[in-house]
C-alpha cells in the first residue's frame, strides 16, 4: 500500500512541478522534499499535503505536525489500499 502512496505522491508532485514549468527528477522513497533535488518550495509542499487529503480523505497531521523529510516517510503516514476520488 505504501507503493500506491508513493505513486500518488509522485503523480501529484509532477503535476505541481508542471504547473510551474518545471520537470521532476525521478522520485523514490529516499527523495527529500526540501533541501534536495526537487524543484519545490514550502508552498508547493503545502499544496501536496492538501491535495493528498482531498484524494485519500486522510489528514495524518490532524493532531499536529509529524516530522518527515523524505517521500517514503510521508507515504508511511497514510494508510490506504487505493486512492479514492480525484483531484
Amino acid at each position, binding site marked *: 500500500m505504501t507503493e500506491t502512496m508513493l505513486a500518488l505522491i509522485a503523480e501529484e508532485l509532477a503535476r505541481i512541478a508542471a504547473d510551474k514549468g518545471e520537470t521532476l527528477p525521478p522520485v523514490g522513497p529516499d527523495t527529500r522534499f*526540501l533541501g534536495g533535488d526537487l524543484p519545490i518550495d*514550502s*508552498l508547493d509542499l*503545502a499544496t501536496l*499535503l*492538501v491535495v493528498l*487529503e482531498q484524494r485519500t480523505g486522510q489528514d495524518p497531521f490532524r493532531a*499536529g505536525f509529524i*516530522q518527515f523529510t523524505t517521500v517514503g516517510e510521508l507515504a508511511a503516514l497514510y494508510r490506504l489500499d487505493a486512492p479514492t476520488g480525484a483531484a
Partner: protein
Amino acid sequence: MTEPPPPWIDPSVRLIEGDAHFGWPDIARMADALEATFRNAAEMATVRGDRASTVVAALVAAERAKVPLFLKRHGSKPGAPVAEDATPASPGFSVLLETSGTTGAPKRARHGFDRLRGRLRGTADPHARWLLTFDPASFAGLQVILTALASGATLVSTPGASTAELAGAAVRHAVTHISATPSFWRAFLMALGTSGPALAAVTLGGEAVDQPLLDRLAARFPNATLRHIYASTEAGALFAVTDGRVGFPASWLDTGVDGVGLRLSDGVLEVRSPRAMLGYAGGNSADSDWFSTGDVVEVRGDRALFAGRLDGRVNVGGVKVSPEAVEQLLLGVPGVQDALVRAAANPITGHILTATVVPAPGALEADVRAAIREAVADLPPAARPRAITLADHIPLGSAGKKKREGAA
C-alpha cells in the same frame, strides 16, 4: 579615516551576505555614497531593501541626511499602485515600510526610528550569529538586523535564498539565533534533517503558533530559549511569550505587559502601545490610543488563544491573504461562471487557498485553467489559489451562502 558608527551600531558587527563579508568600514563607505544622493532627495530617499547591507547603509545615510527612508520590498512590482501614494513631506528621519502582501494595493507604514528599535531583545550577546530569514525591508527583518547591529553580533543572510539554502547557510556559518515564522520553522526542520546548528535562541513570529511545533522545537533545540513574538506592522512589536505554550496568559488582558495595554472588544484584540507606528503615510496619526489588531482572541481557562482574523483574511506562510478578494478576481476570469475560494489548513504554511470553479457552458477545462493561471500570476505567490477543482456547482450552506470555512 572611517567615521565612528551611530550609537545603534556596535563597530564589531559583521554581515555575511552570501559569499560577501561586510564590517563597519564597508558599511560606512556604502553609507557615504548613499548620503550624497539622499541629501538631494526631494521628499524622501528610496532604496530597494533586498539586501541587509544596503538596508543598513541606507539607514545610516538617511539618519545623517535627516530624510525619511522608503525601503522598497523586492517583491513589489515596478509601477504597481501604492495606496496613499501622495506621501506628504514629513521632515526628519523616519522609516517607511510596505505592509506585507495582501491582495490589495500595498500600504506604506511610517515608523519613527526610536520606536522601531523599542523592543530589541538579546542585545547583550556579541557572540550571537543571527540568520536573517525575513525580507530585510520587512518589519520583522528590521528587528533582526537592528538587534544584530546593536550587539556587535554576526548577521548571516543569503538574498533570495530558499528555505533549504537558508538551512545550509545556518549549518555552514554555525548560526546560534534564528527568528522566523512558524511556517519557516516547519520547513527548516524538514530541510535540516538530522544535521543542524546548536541554536541558543529560537524565536517565532508573524503567524499564530501551534503547540506541537513549540514542543518539537523545544525537543530539537533543548538548549535554546524559545519565545514567540506578537507584533504587527501597524502596532509595532507588542510582546513576547516565553513559557513554551501557545497564545498568551489571559491575565495580560487585565494587567497589560511591558507597557503595552491589551483588551478585548467583541472578541477582537485591541492594543495600546507606546511603540505604535507614527501613522500610515498620508494618514492620521495612530499612536495615541487603542488600536484594533483585527485578530480574534478566545479566552480558555488561564490562556488567551488566537482564533483567526476578523476580516476573514488567513495566514499563508506569514502572508495575510483574503479568500474573498481572490474569489472576486476569479469571478472576473473569462470562462468562469462561479468560483469559491477557501483556506485549506496544512501543517507547512498554516493555510493555502484552494478554489472550486464552475466553468461557463461550453468552456474547455484546459482553457479555463490557463485563463486562471494568467489571472493569478500577478498575485503574491501566497495569494494564488493552489489546488483548483472544476465542478458543476458550488455547494451552498443552509443560509444560501457559499461555505467558506476551511476544509480541515
